[in-house]
């Protein structure tokens, strides 16, 4: 196949994807307006966008988004620090893994939102409450992937570095972590979605700020289009963050894509 026809095909696939999206938005607009669905509970797209624009104009939505993002960001960063550190230690040092194994296996399957009451008892409805649960939920995917990544490193890379006089710290910094990075990154990707979910849920359950709160608040006040605009915002934020992540991954992990494509 020539390069040009590949380009044309990609373009056509893209087009069909956008067409579906347009069609769904069209349905969203038309169904409530034609009375097929109840517009009170399912307002048309244009009304939701109107509410969203109004929310942006009054900075309400922006402020709520900023608060949610702050909480998600803090929890996510803490999870990265804890997950990568513990995962690396567990993956590289035998006694650490023996020591942590049972505890980790017991804690890991616990749904993080089940911890909401405990966190509220401990931290009230402060940011710490949201952040602690986000941290808990996001740590596991990062931890498990880092562990797998550091444990499955080819010993010959280690041997090579040792031959050239690498110290234990050099091994960690220059071989173990870079080699495990593809695994770590896939853990980070999973956790990013988890962070968005948990921040929303914890805010819906017990907060007086943030997008999750905003959705519940407008719901309780029967401000249906505003409620939808909050949901739409979370969707857009999630999409945007994922796009940023993928772009950064494509930039920094290009070697891995090429390498795996070559060795298959």
């Amino acid at each position, binding site marked *: 196949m020539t390069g040009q026809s590949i380009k044309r095909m990609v373009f056509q696939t893209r087009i069909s994807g956008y067409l579906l999206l347009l069609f769904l938005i069209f349905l969203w607009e038309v169904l409530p307006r034609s009375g097929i669905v109840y517009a009170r509970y399912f307002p048309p797209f244009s009304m939701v966008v109107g509410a969203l624009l109004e929310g942006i104009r009054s900075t309400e939505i922006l402020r709520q988004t900023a608060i949610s993002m702050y909480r998600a960001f803090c929890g996510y960063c803490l999870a990265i620090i804890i997950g990568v550190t513990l995962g690396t230690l567990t993956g590289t040092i035998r006694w650490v893994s023996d020591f942590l194994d049972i505890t980790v296996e017991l804690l890991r399957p616990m749904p993080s939102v089940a911890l909401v009451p405990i966190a509220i008892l401990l931290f009230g409805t402060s940011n710490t409450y949201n952040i602690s649960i986000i941290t808990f939920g996001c740590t596991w995917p990062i931890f498990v992937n880092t562990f797998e990544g550091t444990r499955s490193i080819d010993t*010959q890379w280690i041997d090579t570095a*040792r031959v*050239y*006089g690498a110290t234990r710290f050099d091994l960690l910094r*220059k071989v173990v972590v870079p080699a495990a990075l593809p695994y770590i990154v896939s853990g980070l990707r999973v956790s990013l979605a988890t962070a968005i979910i948990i921040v929303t849920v914890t805010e819906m359950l017990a907060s007086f700020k943030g997008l999750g709160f905003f959705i519940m608040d407008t719901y309780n006040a029967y401000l249906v289009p505003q409620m939808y605009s909050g949901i739409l915002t979370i969707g857009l934020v999630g999409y945007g963050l994922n796009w940023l992540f993928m772009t950064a991954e494509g930039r920094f992990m290009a070697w*891995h894509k*090429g*390498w795996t494509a070559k*060795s298959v």
Partner: protein
Amino acid sequence: MLETPPLLRAEQVRRIYVRDGKEVPACEDISFSVNKGEFVCIVGPSGCGKTTLLKCICHLLKPTAGKVFINDREVERPPKEMILIFQDYSRSLFPWRTVLKNVLFVLEKKNLTKKERFNIARSALAAVYLSGFENHYPWELSGGMQQRVAIARGIAFNPDILLMDEPFASVDAQTRSDLEDAILEIWNKFSQTILLVTHDIEEAIYLADRVLVLSGRPSEIREEIRIDLERPRNQLTTKEDKRFIEYRHHIYTLIKEEGQKCERADICQEISQNP
């Protein structure tokens, strides 16, 4: 005239694996020495513990018994005078680093300026004819080129002795003879000392000043053969030389015997394990 002490000396090196609670010797009481500037090859039947021996020499594995000396100093951890180049280049080059950065890796511990590092790395790559590939990733190169990167990395480190573990076993025959000539050129140009392990008898004779023939498992030095062939060697004329063919005949016979012993030992072991 005073005889200079050998650069590398192995004394009664032995390595025993414990597998399923049973002791399996990989190599037993191996002693030999390599002088400065020498090219020594070790040949042996496959599976006779050649890789284990090399790893013991540079202390990636601790020998169960025996000692290794470099410049008359006992080796206790991987010494900076010694570099081991592995057979499987794809598993020893770092895929997340470019070719140049793979070479720079070995210079990061040295007390050099950034500019000196780059110059050394560039000239090492030039010595293996890889100028212009600095910014490629290793996996973008052919197998032969990747092994050249591994060799460049070795010479950039500037060790007293290069150990090579079947370095040309994973490439095709044409590339293999090219790499053999490349390593001879480097040996000559940098006055390197090289200890190379191979299962290929012709390769050993073609490259070496001295060939050490290992016995089957547990391996010992069965015979030491001095190769009196003119240098520079040539893929055609050297290999057509009557003496080359005689060496080949002799070593082949030795290894064939040892290989059979190896197989018989395997069968005996299996029978004793599952009577």
